């Protein structure tokens, strides 16, 4: 509960801070628009050659693009800024300020930065999903909708864990700025359902980098492909990952030595 109230407080402060810079909204709109435009061009190129890609029709892949944009927005708004700041803090020794606060350090490093304008991607993601659902002409039942939301939350939690696990490595390897490139590069694979990748890569994108859980599984819920067993499996994996991340964070923290803060 305390974690949630801390998160809400930081959310409010972060939002107030960023709302001062309204021109950034226009910039974000343009950047997100360009990104979606590129995604649509690629889809158009693929579907100018074939009617369906590995069993996924055009509207279904549009739904994947929607989920990809939506989750990308969540990552850019809540996860990435916190992890980038953590890397800087470890390098500069300013993590001292977090460790001396009377609250859980993992919670504090995970909630203190918010880039509110990335909410544009979240909204855009929902719009694309809406268009895809209309094109699919299928009926999205209430159960599917619930499964979609649950899958989305589980996927986001797993992305958070993955990113924090990597960032925790900063306690050993000091220069970790490239981690953003690494993650965004791998995350881009989520533009396509992981089922199109070769086995070894699909395994990697499921269990090593949870792109499958973050994008493909929610998209499967939207397109009627998700089974209850798969969703339960995702929940179990998310829980395991949260526990491992917690443990690794504590191990990493013992390596930390503030130098010159």
């Amino acid at each position, binding site marked *: 509960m305390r974690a949630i109230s801390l998160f809400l407080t930081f959310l409010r402060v972060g939002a107030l801070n960023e709302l001062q810079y309204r*021109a950034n909204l226009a*910039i974000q709109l*343009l*950047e997100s628009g*360009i990104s979606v*435009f*590129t995604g649509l*061009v*690629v889809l158009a*190129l*693929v579907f*100018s*050659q*074939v009617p369906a*890609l*590995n069993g996924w029709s055009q509207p279904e892949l549009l739904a994947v693009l929607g989920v990809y944009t939506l989750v990308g927005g969540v990552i850019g708004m809540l996860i990435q800024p916190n992890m980038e700041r953590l890397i800087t803090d470890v390098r500069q020794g300013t993590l001292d300020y977090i460790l001396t606060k009377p609250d859980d350090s993992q919670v504090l490093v995970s909630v203190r930065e918010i880039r509110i304008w990335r909410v544009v991607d979240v909204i855009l993601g929902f719009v694309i999903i809406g268009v895809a659902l209309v094109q699919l002409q299928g009926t999205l039942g209430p159960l599917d909708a619930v499964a979609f939301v649950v899958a989305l939350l589980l996927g986001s939690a797993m992305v958070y864990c993955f990113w924090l696990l990597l960032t925790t490595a900063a306690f050993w*390897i000091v*220069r*970790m*700025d*490239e*981690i953003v*490139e*690494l*993650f*965004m*590069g*791998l995350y*881009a*694979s989520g*533009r*396509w359902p992981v089922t*199109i*990748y*070769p086995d*070894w*890569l699909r395994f990697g994108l499921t269990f090593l980098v949870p792109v499958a859980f973050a994008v493909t599984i929610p998209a499967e819920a939207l397109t009627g492909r998700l089974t209850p067993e798969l969703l339960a499996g995702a929940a179990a994996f998310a829980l395991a990952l949260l526990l491992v991340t917690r443990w690794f964070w504590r191990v990493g923290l013992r390596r930390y030595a503030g130098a010159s803060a």
Partner: protein
Amino acid sequence: MIASARSWVDIYLTEMRIAIQQQLQYRVANYFYMIGMIAEPVIYLVVWTTVAEQQGGAVGGLDSGELAAYYIVWTLVRNMNIVFTPFGWENRIREGTFSGELLRPMHPIHYDLGYFAGWKVVVILLWLPLAAVLSLLFHPTATITPLGVVTFAIAIWGAYLIRSLNQSSLGMVTFWTTRVGPVFDIYFTAELLLSGRLVPMSLMPDWVQQIAWLLPFQWTFGFPIEALVGGLSPEQLLGGLAMQALWIAIGAVVLRRMFSIAVRRYSAVGG
């Protein structure tokens, strides 16, 4: 004349040596960066191989082995295409560190060119094992000719030079305004679509290919790749190098002109 040429070479070699020594210390960071980057072509490769297989083996005249060859060489060309970016200029100007660079005796572009060229040496070394692994995984096929190899070896440095000059010219915009992310994004999107980075140009509609021919992008990306594995004729190879030379000349003139106008606007506090 000779003495001045020698001191130029000396500055370039020194910058390169510094970059090599610095970057070799950060092997893990460099590898993270390269692995993140390699995800992109692997994704394109898988998507287009799937399309090729569904169409009976080939798409845009390329079969899966040729697509693999294209995207594996892509990874090196992409790395060669990394240069000092307009965002770097934005930082220099916003934070005022550019003041110090103005005090140095040569045009700042020479230090950037030298430093990044040295970094490329490290990147090429680190790339070799990655290329070997990708080749084992994706089984590339290509007819490689000695002339193609020579052209490729020249063209990747030509590409590096063109892109450096263009990116720095674009960076000059930051002398007027320091929030230019969206301008750059539009430029990078055009480059992504028209360079052969997203797909080999043969997969694009004809009119797109015609537009791309007139722009610098594909000469820094698609051309070097195809020089090595695209089975280009000697005329096409020489023609491509000539286009690169043309774009290097244009880039140098534009940058020189823009820099002399832009630098008059520069002012800094601190830095």
